[in-house]
């Protein structure tokens, strides 16, 4: 568990098409969509393939492994994250291809560099819903 706020979007703000993703996180699985027509793994979850326009998308369980594509250490900010500084925001390139915006957690900010291997963690809120974050692996 990280020490960052776990503030999930209001369920009303979640699209119907992305529900399997959120249900997967709650169950401890990273679920992604692959296009049946062009074979691209898409991000973020939605109802059509942005690479070819196909609506033939299939969910699968991803490895949860990736590497850091870029990162920053947020040292000053307002709002609910204001008390959590310094913390890391990064893009993780998943083993399956997509690059996702996330937090790098369970490490000292600044110890992580681009190319660092990471593994997903599921950060749960009190209601059992989860956010997708990542921690370094050696």
């Amino acid at each position, binding site marked *: 568990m990280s020490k*960052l*706020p*776990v*503030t*999930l*979007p*209001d369920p*009303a*703000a*979640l*699209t119907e098409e*992305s529900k399997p993703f*959120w249900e997967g996180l709650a169950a401890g699985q990273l679920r992604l969509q692959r296009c049946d027509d062009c074979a691209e*793994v*898409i*991000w*973020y*979850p*939605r109802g059509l393939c*942005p690479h070819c326009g196909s609506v033939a998308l299939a969910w699968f369980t991803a490895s949860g492994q990736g590497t850091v*594509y*870029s*990162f*920053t*250490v*947020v*040292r*000053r*900010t*307002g*709002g*609910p*994250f204001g008390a*959590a500084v310094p*913390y890391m*925001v*990064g*893009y993780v390139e998943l083993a399956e*291809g*997509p*690059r*996702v*915006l*996330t*937090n790098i957690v369970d490490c000292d900010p*600044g110890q992580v560099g*681009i190319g660092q291997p990471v593994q997903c963690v599921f950060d749960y809120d009190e209601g059992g819903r989860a*956010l997708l*974050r990542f921690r370094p692996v050696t």
Partner: protein
Amino acid sequence: MTAIRGAARIAGVYEHPGRHLPGTSLPQIHAEVALGALADAGLTLSDVDAYFCAGDAPGFGAISMAEYLGLRLRHLDSTESGGSSYLMHLGHAAAAIAAGQCRVALITLGGKPRTGGAPPGGSMNDSRAPEYAFETPFGAPTVAQYALAAQRHMYEFGTTSAQLAEIKVAASLHAQHNPHALLPRPVTLEEVLDSPMISDPLHRLDCCVVTDGGGALVVVSPDVARSLDRTSVTLLGQGESVKYAGGRIDLTYTGAVWSGPAAFEQAGLKPADIGYASIYDSFTITVLQCLEDLGFCEKGQGGPFVAEGNLRAPDGLLPFNTDGGGLCNNHPGNRGGMTKVIEAVRQLRAEAHPAVQVADCRFALAHGSGGSLGTRAGAATVILGREDV
């Protein structure tokens, strides 16, 4: 060449002198800049037959503002692309003028982020946006999203914090000549590097200012321009684009890779022809990447290009943001595109401060970005020519 080249001229511009306007309402800021730009052109509200505004306009966009200003319109456009909106409006206004749909187009911007209160309408914080649930929970403020781009650019090309800092130093050297600049004091490279880290690798002085204020442009047909006493500036080319993450984000380039070449092709010009450039400078990294993407240097060479002092007016290879830019002068409504066009017009009219006026400035470029460099952003480029070229 296309129909846009030479189809419209900028006959009036106005930058609100205020930087903190708690006693002026948002619609009134729009009104003050509208009146200022029309007076600059030698026109009045009754001459306006087209109106353009973006998400910073309160209420029902152009419809609310048309009523407030008392405009009688036959063309309106509320294209919203953040800070790049006003450069998109310029191209759209030229196309509308070329099509005979209007003759005098007014474009306004107003904002009060320094006073605070509700942010402008728009979109980036709309929970119904499809990307919202996948990005908002991670506490990535705007500066962090630009920092991610800076970090990756450093990794791939060896760009340094000192190179980024030179962009701020150059802007501050220009701002000292602007009596309205929020930050008129020149800063040193060391001051930038020693300022507090906000989001690695961006320091406080890598970030633009937060100001109230606004600006306006009056765009007219060539025949209207010829009837006016005021010197006008010709729109030679305009390009616009949108870049998004698309699941495979590449943080090392911006939408300027598309908007720039489109504008240059229309204008029949190349980067070496440009005597002055206004580049939206939300953060230092924004300028660096756009310089590369617009073709002023090779991709990845933005760091050495700026470190050589090329951005410093009046004698650098490519003097930029001679008003002090968003980094030092003004960033009304958190939207930098409008002031970029206004300073480019000053340069082409030879009305910039003498200390930063580019000699014999014939062609100028203005570029705006809107949104987040790290995730999704609009980009718009305009190329302007002096009245006699």
